[in-house]
């Protein structure tokens, strides 16, 4: 459910949703770490328990790495686009026959603990209905906000003059991956069974731009089979990769901030089971319809296509080849 623009829904809205939509086994509230949301959702959960005796658990996501431990203090880190992976994994897992409420909660907490995200943006957003002013002009030409959130607060670091995309991505990956930074180093991706990358459009990027960013991030992380366009469209290809073996790459508008002219990078230290739940088909608006497994490392599996339509032979072993059968 949603509140007003950039505000938490109120307790009545949340309680109404728990009461009307919540399943018999119980309700898991997946929320992002913002003081208003944390209070309102906890209050609604307590009311659901007190008034109706319902089972309600809360999972709080704080995946932002841009504001380090020292500065975020007891308030903790913000919740960003990594939350979408938690929604997807628990959504798919809840369909598994016989899975218990407590197992879902446990899985949710495990996913939350393996998420890191950082955002960047060329400027703030325009709130519909408000007059355009210098303050909310979507794109500023002389700066980039690093550590951008999703509620139109300015970035935790303003980079001016704006760096080139390749070095911006480099700074972002440093914040996500570095295990030497005592103020960060939240999740170690190098010991992960599987790593999932999610590149999220904050709302204002074109599909072409997001595709270019996704490609650059994938290469910088260590994905070797991303096609490299020789002209590079003006982008410098990162000289060295960080040797993070990506199991899945997701790219799209998963958690937007209205027309925010920016993107965020999320990494999940995942298990094979989590990846299966990410692969499971879903019809939610905004989730890519095609299986993200098409981004897998090159498979050794090959496909025969007989007469251009031969369904039975498609999964047969062998090299990818199209057998030529002249049409009579």
């Amino acid at each position: 459910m949603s509140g007003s623009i950039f505000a938490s829904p109120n307790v009545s809205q949340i309680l109404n949703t728990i009461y009307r939509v919540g399943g018999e086994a119980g309700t898991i509230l997946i929320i992002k770490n913002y003081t208003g949301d944390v209070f309102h959702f906890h209050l609604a959960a307590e009311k659901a328990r007190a008034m109706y005796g319902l089972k309600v658990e809360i999972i709080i996501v704080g995946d932002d790495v841009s504001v380090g431990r020292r500065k975020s203090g007891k308030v903790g880190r913000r919740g960003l686009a990594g939350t979408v992976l938690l929604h997807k994994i628990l959504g798919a897992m809840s369909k598994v026959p016989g899975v218990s409420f407590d197992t879902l909660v446990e899985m949710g907490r495990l996913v939350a603990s393996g998420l890191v995200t950082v955002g960047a943006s060329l400027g703030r957003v325009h709130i519909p209905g408000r007059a355009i002013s210098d303050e909310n002009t979507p794109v500023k030409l002389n700066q980039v906000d690093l550590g951008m959130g999703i509620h139109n607060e300015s970035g935790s670091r303003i980079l001016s003059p704006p760096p080139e995309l390749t070095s911006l991505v480099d700074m972002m990956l440093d914040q996500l991956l570095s295990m030497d930074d005592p103020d960060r180093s939240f999740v170690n991706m190098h010991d992960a069974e599987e790593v999932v990358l999610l590149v999220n459009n904050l709302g204002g990027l074109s599909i072409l731009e997001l595709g270019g960013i996704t490609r650059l991030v994938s290469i910088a992380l260590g994905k070797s089979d991303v096609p490299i366009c020789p002209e590079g469209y003006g982008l410098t290809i990162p000289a060295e990769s960080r040797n993070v073996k990506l199991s899945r790459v997701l790219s799209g508008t998963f958690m937007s901030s209205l027309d925010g002219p920016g993107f965020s990078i999320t990494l999940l230290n995942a298990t094979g089971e989590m990846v299966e739940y990410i692969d499971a088909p879903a019809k939610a608006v905004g989730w890519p319809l095609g299986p993200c497994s098409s981004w897998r490392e090159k498979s050794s599996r090959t496909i025969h296509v007989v007469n251009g339509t031969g369904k039975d032979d498609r999964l047969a072993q062998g090299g990818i080849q199209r057998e030529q059968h002249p049409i009579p």
Partner: protein
Amino acid sequence: MSSILSHDIILKLTTATVDLPEFRSRATRACELLIAAEPRITRADTIVGDGDCGITLARGANAVMSLLTSTELSPDAASTLLRISAVIEDSMDGTSGALYSIFFNALTSALRSLPSTSQIIDSSTWGLVASEALAKLQLATTARQGDRTLMDALEPFISSFARGDGAQTAFTRAKSGVDATKGMQAAFGRAVYVEEKAWQVVPDPGAEGVVCILEGLVGKS
């Protein structure tokens, strides 16, 4: 479709029982003390916060007082606490409104889980349910004793009371907790934004409010 959220709905809960006249008199005393302390709490909050703490607490206390004088209260513990929770939520706002609402709703759900009995709830059971409610509140906030918030009064009281120290000793602990906030560094709330020297002058206003309530509930030694 009618809203489920109307506070007019009477829930037929059967849980444990409170001695209603006794409960009324203690709770009323707590509200009176809170209202009387409003100017002092307001003054303190003007120094370290935004000055609304006393007024918010007094508004809640007045609303609870009028509930206590109504004939709607039943001796059923969870039903009564649920009504009080609803009144608190409607009358108080801001962070303290949220914290009080979460705590009283959590107290209600802890009471709901008690077996149904006509026996009056004893102090060890109150200690148990209060500890459960405190644990729930601590899920909603990372504020703990030592952060210059109302937790500096609430935590020492509940942990001492649940240990079986008795109400008077527990109340003394809460009072020392509040005194200790004088000079304490703030980690939450508006107090974080004011000049540090203001922290030396007054104790935390939110914690002072809790002590007023506890003083009324505990009664005369």
